[in-house]
């Protein structure tokens, strides 16, 4: 059978389809998003229920319900999503499931697109759930089917934890045929099983501990864990995840190697076999020293005379992602006798002089309605004391100069609540909270209820661009479309706010600057919770109507448009202000702020 080029996330999604998954839920988040999208794209007969849930907690609970009823279910999220879903996760670990349930939480060493460098392998240990940790898209593909089988065999959810380089790396994969999708048995009532009570948790806790001892033995002979290399060597290397592939790129010899694909429960017997006869081990892994600590523990428990090196001993770095180069350097220090390694490492050091490179931080796109919204608020506030609490999404980029309109950003939903805390302590400031539409539904609503209930003065600014832009434009409850391809009821942000009891709610088009500024001024007058909804679609979900150009005869080159907006389409050609036609999206905001009326709309392809 021919191989297909699949991204790790596509491989995971397809593997779930092949494994006969019945229900797939998730909330978008880099680097996990494409998994669920792949399932949706391979669901022509609509036999799988696929949904973007409102957030990760909802997703995990829906999937748990499906698995209670005997279905195979998959939940996908990024690592911080598991923080949101941790309440159901911790309890579900005690209750267990009937159908197979696989939870994919994608980690992001670096971090490349995340708030934290947390390590989901700890969540496995914390919740006592089995964890699979793939080194490659191929291995991720294989692990999914096995995770479902294991889940059904032991009636427990199983975690799959790929990392960015596995999720966003492609490989040629043979996908094989789909397993026959089984019709789930249905929910069988049994309160002693499905209703969590302290007594049940105590009993199940004992069973879980016993099961994990058994799983550790099972994993010692699992095909994702193995020993390779020179079995007589005195030095060893232990590795898991993508770091293993970096190690394989180096010119290694004379070492014994342990590869770990199931970090929890740790395959203790295999580890003993590996450590026996070794005097020193270097552990290569990303994020936290999970394998390292397990090996230290095993060495102590079995009185093995071996030194375990890694992050805890400062032999490897404890933050950021690994690379072939970092791993080679670590190895050349650990194996000074290995000449090839040193030579390779020295070569890598040689680099020619280069001129100072331009920094290229990500920016709001040309035409992005968020830019206009931030600008309108800035104009309306003028010299008044104000603090802008922002949140996670494309609009976090509003923090960059020249807008400089995001003073705080913590985690999804925190803009609304952090603004309240700031205001309570410093009531003379006007406290704005900026929240995207997807974030509003995911975790903003409870914060608004909190403010209304406690009577705190904040101005909520909902940036409704009709999509979840940052993660690649997924639909959400306000968009009226689902991942089943159906048109559904739109949840109205206005009505939600009205229902909560927000007294003043104004909706405005941010691309109409005078209207937008007036809307903000209007709500600034009042007290308690007030809201402005700025509604204008993301440029990725609409077509450009026109574009704008500078009339050189009128332009004084004052540069106000550049300095105020920071639009990537507006630059200078020599001294002359210039709008790059291939980037302009025709939002017209620059034309509205130009005092000299020097920016004009060009319709069609002029």
């Amino acid at each position: 059978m021919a191989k297909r080029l699949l991204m790790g996330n596509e491989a995971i999604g397809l593997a779930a389809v092949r494994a006969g998954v019945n229900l797939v839920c998730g909330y978008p988040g880099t680097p996990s998003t494409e998994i669920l999208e792949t399932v949706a794209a391979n669901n022509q007969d609509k036999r799988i229920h696929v949904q973007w849930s409102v957030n990760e907690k909802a997703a995990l609970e829906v999937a748990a319900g499906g698995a209670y009823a005997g279905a195979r279910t998959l939940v996908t999220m990024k690592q911080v999503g598991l923080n949101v879903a941790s309440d159901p996760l911790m309890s579900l670990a005690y209750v267990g499931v009937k159908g197979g349930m696989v939870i994919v939480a994608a980690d992001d060493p670096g971090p490349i697109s995340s708030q934290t460098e947390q390590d989901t392998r700890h969540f496995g240990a914390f919740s006592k759930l089995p964890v699979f940790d793939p080194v490659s898209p191929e291995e991720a593909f294989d692990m999914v089917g096995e995770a479902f089988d294991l889940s059904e065999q032991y009636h427990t959810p199983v975690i799959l934890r790929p990392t960015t380089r596995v999720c966003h790396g492609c490989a040629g994969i043979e996908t094989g045929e789909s397993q026959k999708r089984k019709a789930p048995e249905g929910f069988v009532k049994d309160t002693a099983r499905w209703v969590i009570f302290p007594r049940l948790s105590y009993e199940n806790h004992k069973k879980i501990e016993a099961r994990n001892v058994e799983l550790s033995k099972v994993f010692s002979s699992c095909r994702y864990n193995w020993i390779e290399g020179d079995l007589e060597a005195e030095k060893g290397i232990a590795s898991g995840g993508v770091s293993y592939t970096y190690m394989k790129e180096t010119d290694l010899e004379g070492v014994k190697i342990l590869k770990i694909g199931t970090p929890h429960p740790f395959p203790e017997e295999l580890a003993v076999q590996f450590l026996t006869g070794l005097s020193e081990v270097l552990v290569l892994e990303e994020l936290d020293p999970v394998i390292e600590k397990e090996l230290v523990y095993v060495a102590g428990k079995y009185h093995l005379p071996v030194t375990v090196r890694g992050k805890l001993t400062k032999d490897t770095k404890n933050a950021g992602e690994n690379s072939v180069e970092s791993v080679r350097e670590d190895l050349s220090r650990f194996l000074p006798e290995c000449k090839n390694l040193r030579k390779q490492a020295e070569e890598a050091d040689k680099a020619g002089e280069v001129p100072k490179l331009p920094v290229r931080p990500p920016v709001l796109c040309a035409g992005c309605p968020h830019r206009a919204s931030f600008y309108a608020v800035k104009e309306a506030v003028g010299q008044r004391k104000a603090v802008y609490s922002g949140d996670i999404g494309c609009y976090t980029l509003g923090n960059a100069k020249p807008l400089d309109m995001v003073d705080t950003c913590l985690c999804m939903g925190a803009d609304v609540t952090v603004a309240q805390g700031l205001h309570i302590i410093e009531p003379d400031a006007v406290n704005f909270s900026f929240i995207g539409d997807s974030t509003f539904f995911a975790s903003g609503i409870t914060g608004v209820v909190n403010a209304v209930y406690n009577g705190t003065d904040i101005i909520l600014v909902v940036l409704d661009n009709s999509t979840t832009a940052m993660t690649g434009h997924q639909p959400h409850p306000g968009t009226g479309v689902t991942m089943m391809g159906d048109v559904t009821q739109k949840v109205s942000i206005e009505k939600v706010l009205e229902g909560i009891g927000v007294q003043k709610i104004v909706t405005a088009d941010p691309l109409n600057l005078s209207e937008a500024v007036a809307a903000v001024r209007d709500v600034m007058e009042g007290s308690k919770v007030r809201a402005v909804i700025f509604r204008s679609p993301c440029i990725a979900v609409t077509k450009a109507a026109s574009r704008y150009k500078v009339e050189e005869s009128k332009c004084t080159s004052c540069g106000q448009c550049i300095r105020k907006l920071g639009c990537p389409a507006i630059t200078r050609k020599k001294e002359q202000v210039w709008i790059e036609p291939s980037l302009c999206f025709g939002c017209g905001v620059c034309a509205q702020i130009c005092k000299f009326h020097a920016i004009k709309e060009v319709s069609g392809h002029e």
Partner: protein
Amino acid sequence: MNKNCLLCGVGGQGVVLASKLIAYAALEKGLKVRTSETIGMSQRGGSVVSHVRMGEEIYSPMIPMHSADVILAFEPAEAVRNLSYLKKGGVAVVNKKAVKPVTAALGQSPYDGEEMLCCLRKQVEQLYVVDGEEICRRAGSPKVLNVALLGAALGSGALGLSPGDIERQLEGAVKPQFAAVNREALRMGAALAQNRPGYERPEER
């Protein structure tokens, strides 16, 4: 023999599609393929990189330093940023046009594309500077920059793939109505690197 191609540019320039085309073509030839993409925050106008590796034995999805056979840069500064990936004697295909970051327009970080090209001329033995804008204009679409540059890389012969290998992949990868312009851009790119008039030749030294 393994071949490594590093593609780099600025979010939105079509880097990912170009890397997919190479990977599809290599896979069709029965090679082992691994790639690594930049997906996420950086796609909003930040620096993006795709690694494509093909051959018999490949583990890492990322190209080790000093081992890219080809750097395919959509922007001069991005070529310089990734220059340490290029192996000795490797080929760099670089689009001439600089993309100025907003920070440059605001005067926080001055940037001149010519300075980058100068540095490349000094350090790269086999350099192809391509006027991508001109090819796009002649092909009649601003969206074919990626394929034009890819064509030049193929024309250089350093990828071990031919323009025909990629043409076959275009069918499935772009919408039917755009297949013709893409084919045209691919051929123009390839012709440039095959030493025909109208482009900058590899620097003589």
